[in-house]
């Protein structure tokens, strides 16, 4: 479904991703692990079109989206739940969720999707009218997840979705992810909570200094000594 070939990304002169290639099959849950600064978020950003790749190719369902705008990419069905929450601080919870379905025009469906998200994160329903910027960190994270799902994507990029969530909600979040996978939504997941991510995924890539250094099934990576040592805390 998604295929990246030889991707290179720069921030000014800093090279953040180097010659990266990866593949995500339809319906799969693929995870990307790696140390801080390895280039995971950068990869996601260039897939969703907010950071232009400097070279390489990104194909989505056979279509080249390397140079496409974020809007086009969204319209193809890719949603990105970005790192660090990034909610619209001066908009209410409700308005933030509305932004999530900015490109949709099926009010009935939207209403039921909204209910679905409120079921998962009841606090959001309670805080519907609160300015998102005044939410607590975890509440903002829930909002960011909800907002990404509001576009009804067929492919979701999750960047550390469990960040700042309480353990019970971390669980909820992983439940959501495996559930949407079951609904045939493809997921590319970046997680620091590598145990959970590796346990859940179909395929995993290890990223180091902007390059893929290892890949395999979740079990394989979990079993790898190096990975255990460096990323799973021994």
């Amino acid at each position, binding site marked *: 479904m998604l295929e990246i070939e030889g991707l290179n990304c720069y921030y000014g002169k800093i090279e953040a991703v180097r010659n990266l290639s990866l593949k995500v099959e339809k319906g799969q849950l693929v995870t990307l692990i790696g140390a801080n600064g390895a280039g995971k978020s950068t990869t996601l950003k260039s897939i969703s079109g907010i950071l232009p790749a400097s070279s390489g190719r990104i194909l989505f369902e056979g279509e080249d989206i390397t140079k496409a705008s974020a*809007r086009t990419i969204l319209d193809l069905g890719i*949603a990105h739940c*970005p790192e660090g929450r*990034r909610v619209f*601080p*001066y908009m209410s919870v409700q308005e933030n969720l509305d*932004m999530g379905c*900015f490109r949709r025009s099926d009010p009935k469906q939207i209403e039921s999707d909204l209910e679905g998200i409120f079921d998962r994160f009841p606090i959001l329903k309670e805080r519907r009218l609160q300015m998102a*910027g005044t939410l607590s960190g975890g509440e903002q994270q829930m909002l960011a997840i909800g907002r990404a799902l509001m576009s009804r994507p067929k492919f979701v990029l999750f960047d550390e979705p469990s960040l700042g969530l309480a353990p019970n909600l971390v669980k909820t979040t992983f439940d959501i992810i495996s559930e949407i996978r079951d609904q045939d939504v493809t997921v590319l997941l970046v997680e620091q909570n590598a145990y959970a991510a590796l346990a859940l995924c179909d395929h995993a890539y290890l990223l180091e200094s902007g390059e893929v250094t290892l890949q395999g099934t979740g079990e394989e990576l979990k079993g790898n000594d190096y990975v255990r040592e460096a990323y799973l805390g021994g």
Partner: protein
Amino acid sequence: MAEFLQHILNAIVLGGTYALLGIGLTLIFGIMKVVNFTHGELYSFGAYMIFMFSAMLGLNFFLAIILSMVLGVLLGGIIEFALLRPLRGANIDTTMLVMIGAWIVMQNLEQLSWGGVAKSINHPFPLDPLVIGEVSVSWIRVFVFFFAVILIIGSYYLINNTKLGKSMRATFQDRDIAALMGVNINRVYTATFALGSGLAATAGALLGPVFVVTPTMGDMAALKAFAIVILGGLGSIAGATIGGFILALAEEMGAGYISSGYRDAMGFILIILVLIFRPTGLFALKERYG
């Protein structure tokens, strides 16, 4: 008493146009975070356009107003496209400097093309004023007031209740994320700037016939617009509206009962006081720490 009522009436009528200037700027300065020094120039541009259409080309007065509005929107769009788009992501001081440059260029182009002599525009309204009891107000001002009020309500609705309004706010709070939501960022930037500019040009087109048109007429107007935006709280349409009326009232009363020399000072003193007691303007948005 008559004098007092006259002052109040004057203030209300003036406040309408102040509010128009204020909301135009609150879109650009309050929401887009561009310190827009060309706001005053769009105001005088609107005034010159109605002069051109109505006084020089002899078009229908109301048609001339509409044309000036449209051209104001267009000019705003062009400025955004040519000057701000290449600087997307630059910090606020950088864009401010460009806008200062544009301001200087525009004002002197105006001076070059129209000359320094003030222009006056005739309007189709009767010269004899509308008399209400002891007070009076000219018909053109009544027209300007209602026109302004309609535009204010329209803008309010646009920002708060339409998809475009929502995408504007989203874009200027977090550009990348708005793009992720499918907002066409470039279009929103241009539209916001064009809309704000259009409102300024409209204010100019409305006030041109009331006052006279000169190349430097925009300077004070811009300064007041900034004051109004701050008074109301950044980015708040309601705030800018109320700020506009409050400023007009303060000026009118100050000039009437304290000293006309300090007329413009009234507004500024008011602003300092407001900000001392309510540091984020009258209608501020909340923030949190941590």
